[in-house]
């Protein structure tokens, strides 16, 4: 049997969306048994290309070959019939059903009678084969994010995929879970599977990929580079199209007085379950303090409590020694907590830009004055000085390089990076004393990340206290003066000299003291 060298070949693929050429003459090939990384900034056309490969979109032009044979996919079902399956970034699972039920969902077999115990065994065996350990009887909602991802991979494998497309699979994982995933991926390639790994994280790509294809603005800027022949700097330049500085200018400076003091803070999440179980930390003027942790360990609740959006159930938050939230809070009940906190000089870059940080159908100007519309010069008595507001927005637009036709453009027409710059511009221009920055660079491309990080460092130099919440360890380490690690609503420890391994252990629930004592025992 003659086997073809390439599992997948895509030739001069062109796909156009209104106003954008998402893919332009893109060539891509995947060898059998390799891990091929597809690297590019947001909007570079990675997902579009893979959606074409998996039958979700149809290209305007170009051909796809699977095992040397020309194919035309009309739907994802066609693609999976040819052995191509995709694991999406956002899981598509039914939370109340078991792992087995989720894997079988939408298949023709079993037809009528569900012989679940038989399938439990089949799926369990399949998992064993690839090191994807997950209890087939467990309900999805009981599983961790990493385990849910395994279910998604099992779904694709069960459908007989030989080519797996993984869309940013590490975005939701803790460092240890990433290691496990990489282990699984390698064992799958040994079994003859081929993998396309979509990412914009250079370190991971360097760690896992055999070859790399870089996309920029819908075009291929490097095709099938051997990982061993390249380096991070070169890849970054190819992604962005210009030199990217990895070293940020961070001046050593002595932190000032305590701006934010949190003592034994407790709060509940949206479901009424305890989310913060006694958090204590402090942030001083002129320092950036990082808060590391896997998503969903209480970071959002902490930011909400500090900014007044969520009530505390115990403990307190002090800003400049004045109790703003919690016991001993001087504010009379029923007064507007959020507003009091804004007036105290606390700014907030929310995690959710489109649903919390901005108002999609209002203009750039209306979005820019969201925090400042109560004060002069924008407020004039009961009215808003429209021309001053527009001038102010015009100023922000040019100072922060926000790309929009006019200040009257609706916020929903802005791209993610521009919207984030608008929010940053608004939050920074109030010259905050304390800034709560939630995932300020998430989803931004390399160039934009650099700009945002520089702005945060500028604020630090100006003497602002910054609490930086992020899932990007590298970013936390390069920006922060100190890092706290949060796990299940508790602080696992505080560290000055951060190494990723130690942070990773703390992020999965080991206390700093325990790590330290282990180190002492070992030698």
């Amino acid at each position, binding site marked *: 049997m003659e086997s073809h060298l390439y599992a997948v070949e895509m030739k001069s693929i062109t796909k156009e969306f*209104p*106003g954008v050429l998402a893919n332009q003459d893109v060539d891509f090939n995947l060898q059998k048994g390799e891990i091929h990384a597809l690297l590019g900034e947001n909007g570079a056309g990675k997902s579009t290309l893979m959606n074409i490969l998996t039958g979700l979109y149809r290209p*305007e032009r170009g051909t796809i070959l699977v095992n040397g044979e020309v194919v035309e996919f009309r739907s994802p079902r066609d693609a999976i019939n040819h052995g191509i399956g995709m694991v999406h970034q956002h899981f598509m699972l039914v939370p109340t059903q078991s792992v087995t039920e989720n894997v079988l969902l939408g298949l023709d077999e079993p037809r009528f009678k569900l012989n679940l115990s038989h399938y439990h065994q089949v799926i369990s065996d399949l998992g064993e084969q690839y090191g994807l350990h997950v209890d087939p009887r467990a309900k999805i909602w009981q599983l961790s994010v990493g385990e849910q991802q395994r279910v998604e991979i099992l779904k694709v494998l069960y459908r007989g995929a030989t080519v797996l497309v993984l869309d940013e699979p590490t975005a939701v994982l803790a460092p240890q879970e990433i290691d496990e995933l990489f282990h699984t991926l390698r064992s799958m390639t040994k079994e003859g599977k081929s993998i396309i790994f979509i990412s914009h994280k250079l370190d991971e790509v360097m760690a896992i990929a055999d070859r790399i294809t870089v996309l920029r603005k819908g075009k291929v800027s490097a095709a099938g580079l051997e990982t061993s022949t390249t380096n991070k700097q070169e890849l970054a330049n190819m992604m962005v199209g210009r030199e990217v500085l990895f070293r940020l200018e961070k001046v050593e400076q002595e932190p000032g007085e305590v701006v934010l003091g949190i003592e034994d803070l407790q709060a509940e999440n949206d479901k009424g379950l305890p989310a913060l179980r006694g958090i204590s930390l402090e942030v001083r003027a002129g320092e950036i303090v990082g808060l590391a942790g896997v998503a969903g360990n209480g970071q959002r609740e902490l930011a909400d409590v500090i*900014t*007044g*959006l969520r009530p505390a159930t115990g403990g307190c938050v002090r800003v400049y020694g004045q109790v703003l939230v919690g016991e001993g809070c001087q504010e009379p009940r029923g007064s*507007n907590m*959020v*507003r009091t*906190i*804004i007036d105290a000089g606390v700014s*907030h870059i*929310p995690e959710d830009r489109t*649903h*919390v*940080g*901005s*108002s*999609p*159908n*209002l203009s750039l100007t*209306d979005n820019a*004055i*969201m*925090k400042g*519309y*109560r004060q002069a010069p924008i*407020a004039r008595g*009961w*009215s*808003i000085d*429209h021309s001053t507001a527009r001038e102010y927005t015009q100023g922000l637009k040019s100072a922060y390089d926000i790309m929009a*036709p006019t200040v009257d453009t609706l916020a929903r*027409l802005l791209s993610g990076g521009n919207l984030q710059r608008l929010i940053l511009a608004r939050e920074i221009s109030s010259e905050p004393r304390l800034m709560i920055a939630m995932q300020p660079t998430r989803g931004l491309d390399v160039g934009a990340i650099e700009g945002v990080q520089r702005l945060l460092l500028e604020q630090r130099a100006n003497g602002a206290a910054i609490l930086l919440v992020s899932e990007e360890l590298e970013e936390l380490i390069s920006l922060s003066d100190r890092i706290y690690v949060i796990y299940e609503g508790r602080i696992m420890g505080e560290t000055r000299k951060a190494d990723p391994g130690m942070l990773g252990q703390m992020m999965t629930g080991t206390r700093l003291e325990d790590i330290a004592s282990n180190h002492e025992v070992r030698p």
Partner: protein
Amino acid sequence: MSLVGTSRSKFKFPYRFRVEPRLKQPGWLSAVISLGAVVLALIIGGVILLIVGGNPLRAYGFMAKAAFGDLGVISDTLTKATPLILVSLAAVIAFRMRLWNIGAEGQFFIGAFGASAVVLTPLLPPTTSPWLMIPAMVIAGMVTGAIWGFIPGFLKARLNVNEIITTLMMNYIAVAWNNFFIFAVWSEGGFQMTPQFPKSAWLPRLTDLSSQIPAFRGLTTHLGLVFGLIAAVVVWWILYRSRWGYEIRLIGDNPRAARYAGINIVRNTVLVMMLSGALAGLAGMAEISGVVHRLQGAISPGYGFTGIIIAWLSKLNPLLVVPISVLFGGLILAGREIQPSGLPMLIQGIILVCLIASDFLLRYRVRLTSRVEEA
């Protein structure tokens, strides 16, 4: 010529439609598309007229004449438009915050009651100067309307009770409340109406000036129209130039962002419902003081509900409310003049459907592309 695009043997239409979202909306687009929708509605209505054996051009001509044909009917149209402007503004301000106040009808009735109470209780004797009587009635109408808005607003803000249900139900209460007073308390000799108000409680009409300007003889347009025009400008100013209006627009578009900006949503919910109720109450006051001159059962042919439609058609723009209300005032008037009287209602319905459907064209662009060109 290349065969790539035509390799399939099956015949295909050489062009196809593509629907694409519009990235920009030029300012004139909205006006052109709306006008086009009205024209299309008239054409559809004309076809229906032809089918039932009428002459569409004559019918339209007659309707236009009945609504806008001479000074007299224009004045009548404006009289009809007056309450429409005010109730539509009531809907606009509430809808802007996504508060679905569909109780303008009830607030209209209760405002009429409040204004009547000043005259009939009587809080002020009939001999009071109009300079005191009219402002007192305006205040009474607006305050009672505001109270009618306050109740669902408070329930919504504090207990999250659905305002659609409460405002709708309160319409019935308002009508029944009025009926009680019309039948039992202020009834004139057992008829279903109160005695006529003294002249001092009448809003001045154009015809009152006929001794100076003879052309105004018999014209019914009254001071309420001025109330409506002022209210339109005030509502516009509140929405686009005031801090409060900014809060309303922000809450309406994204309540989570509003909370994040430190805006008090509870208080604004109550206040906006009260303003909305006050505007509808003012409409009720203007109608009985300017037109009916007494409180009776049939003071509204569903103004409150027509106001919802007008608010929607004006895309919640307070200034656009005025011309659209005049158009609807004309349609109501034409409905009385021509047979069958359902015809203007039919036209109204078709116009509404066309305008709402035309919104699609505002947001999307339809392009005709050639298949050959694509290949």
